[in-house]
């Protein structure tokens, strides 16, 4: 299978779906002429024209609210929010309008809206351009939350998002855009939501790796293997819906659970997964459930400060070792 980047995988599926379905369009800040500040929509304006690759004002509430309105009259908008941090500018539209439109209408309203959001620290971008806001939205019923970590998952999950009938927050880690991987070319290749991927099988401990942490966790697992600790890595791929079954099954086998994400530890996705495990699988655990994430401070600018705050490959290895009483 040919290898492409994460960024190319996203572009490829957007283009395929736009060719296939005239109601799909892309809208966001600098997605057209600029081709996206992350380069994701490279060449799309040239292919689809300004009617379907729409440069917006710097107006997050309007971008998401307009996406909702277009979805309610039968379009399938993909909107891009340049930095996850900017989601708060559109807070009402996401939390009170998009997420609740179907439920408030008694299940009638269809909201096939995909909100593509970048997430994570790209390096010295500081406190307002580095956050991983996935968990902010976990407490809002009505949204689906997708966190692809590989090019193939990005492609397969984005297709499911575009063809689905519900609003999806699709989190793209900035640091993964340039990573490469094998991606199927089948024009209908898709990955269902709520199905975790076992990225590595192991028997001694389960590490649940979310988004940009997956490559770090995989490297940590290699290190740990050389020390005799056989780690299973589970990537949930979607936080809502969450594949509890696969996670619990893995933990049942390994008796140890670590959750790793780039979001802050306090109230992060790991808190929810840990709570779920303590409710549903505590009897299988031989050690406390451990969360690894960013320290609970805003993301700092200085490279030294930033790398101290962000979770590293070494933090994961250390965390897993601690479950075995090792330093």
């Amino acid at each position, binding site marked *: 299978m040919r290898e492409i980047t994460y960024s190319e995988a996203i572009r490829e599926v957007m283009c395929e779906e736009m060719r296939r379905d005239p109601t799909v369009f892309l809208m966001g800040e600098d997605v057209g002429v600029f081709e996206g500040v992350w380069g994701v929509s490279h060449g799309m304006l040239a292919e689809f024209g300004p009617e379907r690759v729409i440069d917006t004002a710097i107006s997050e509430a309007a971008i998401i609210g307009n996406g909702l309105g277009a979805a309610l009259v039968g379009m399938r908008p993909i909107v891009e929010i340049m930095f996850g941090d900017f989601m708060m500018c559109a807070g009402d*539209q996401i939390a009170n309008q998009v997420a609740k439109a179907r439920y408030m209408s*008694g299940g009638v309203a269809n909201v096939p809206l995909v909100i593509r959001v970048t997430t994570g620290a790209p390096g010295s971008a500081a406190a307002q351009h580095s956050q991983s806001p996935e968990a902010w939205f976990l407490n809002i019923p009505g949204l689906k939350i997708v966190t692809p970590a590989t090019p193939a998952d990005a492609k397969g999950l984005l297709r499911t998002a575009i063809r689905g009938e519900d609003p999806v927050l699709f989190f793209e880690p900035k640091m993964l855009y340039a990573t490469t991987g094998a991606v199927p070319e089948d024009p209908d290749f898709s990955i269902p939501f709520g199905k975790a991927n076992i990225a590595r099988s192991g028997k001694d401990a389960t590490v649940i790796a979310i988004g940009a942490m997956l490559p770090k966790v995989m490297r940590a697992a290699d290190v740990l293997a050389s020390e005799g600790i056989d780690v299973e890595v589970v990537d949930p791929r979607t936080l809502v819906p969450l594949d509890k079954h696969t996670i619990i099954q893995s933990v049942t086998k390994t008796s140890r659970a670590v959750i790793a994400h780039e979001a802050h530890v306090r109230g992060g996705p790991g808190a929810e997964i840990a709570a779920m495990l303590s409710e549903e699988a505590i009897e299988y655990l031989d050690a406390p459930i451990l969360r690894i994430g960013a320290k609970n401070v805003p993301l700092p600018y200085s490279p030294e400060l930033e790398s101290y705050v962000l979770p590293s490959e070494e933090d994961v290895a250390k965390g897993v070792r601690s479950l075995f009483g090792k330093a």
Partner: protein
Amino acid sequence: MSDFEVRKGPKPEELKGRYEPSLLAEMFRRMNLIREFELRAIEERRGGLIPGFIHSCVGQEATAAGACLALNADDVITSTHRGHGHLIGKGGEARYMMAELAARSPGYCKGRGGSLHLADFGLGILGANGIVGGGIPIAVGAALGFKLRGEKRVALAFFGDGATNEGSFHEAANHAGVWKLPVIFFCENNLYGEGTHITRSTPITDLVVRAAGYGFHGVVVDGNDVLAVYDAVVEAARRARAGEGPTFIEAKTYRTRGHYEGDPQVYRTVEEVESWKKKDPIPAFRAKLIKSGLVDEGTLEEIQGQVMAQLDDAVAFASSAEKPKPEDALAGVYADTHNGLVF
């Protein structure tokens, strides 16, 4: 009252040849249905049938009926927390509205929405809204959808004076203006954002001034004159369909009941309310119709009788309708609920 020309509707003798009598009768019917629906809902709330809030639009029926009747059936609206009038104006059925207010299963939202979230997508009603200004970006998005598909449909956003101080208004207006979308911004300026007079919240009192900042055409109408409202929306819809871009219509009006039922209304005087009650749009329109000779008194009385019967039916329907089962609360969050489980 305004530094701008406040457009009035035509005089009684000018109605002939300009409006179909059947349209005039329908306007009268809808205005009465809105008024009586709300008075009845307030009564039923006191009686215990309705558990939630009611924000009535009593006194503002002309904006809702006039604006909605100027639209086509496949045009869409977004509404507000004061939305019963807009719903009825666009053809919403009293039975399903009353059943929703009564939190019953056959209500518009199956008892999950209530007054603040009434919607009928089939009629182009994209929803009332509990958030001030929340519907405006949605209407602009609907207009964007129509433009992208090359459809000659129009979206109209209702909102109050208070919403023009929300960011959503400004962001949505900016996109609508720069993209010349087929959308109408319909501002019901009733002078109060909840309990705060416009002069205490906003540095201008003629909100139409804001139209220019977004490249909109701007119009001020007497919001208690249903034909003035109708004419302004007909023209705005024509402009929208012709690709001439958005129109901001400021309708000067007043709600004669509280912000919500039970509002102590400490922010205004009884004299002020009484002076506006004299400008009640329903008797004014009734008198105009009779004077015009196009609709006779007998017909108007017949319409009023039909409205009352329709509301008796709506209340009977709502009171006897089934209540949702508690576990119904878990359905309808997503299109696909994973075998019925909420996730």
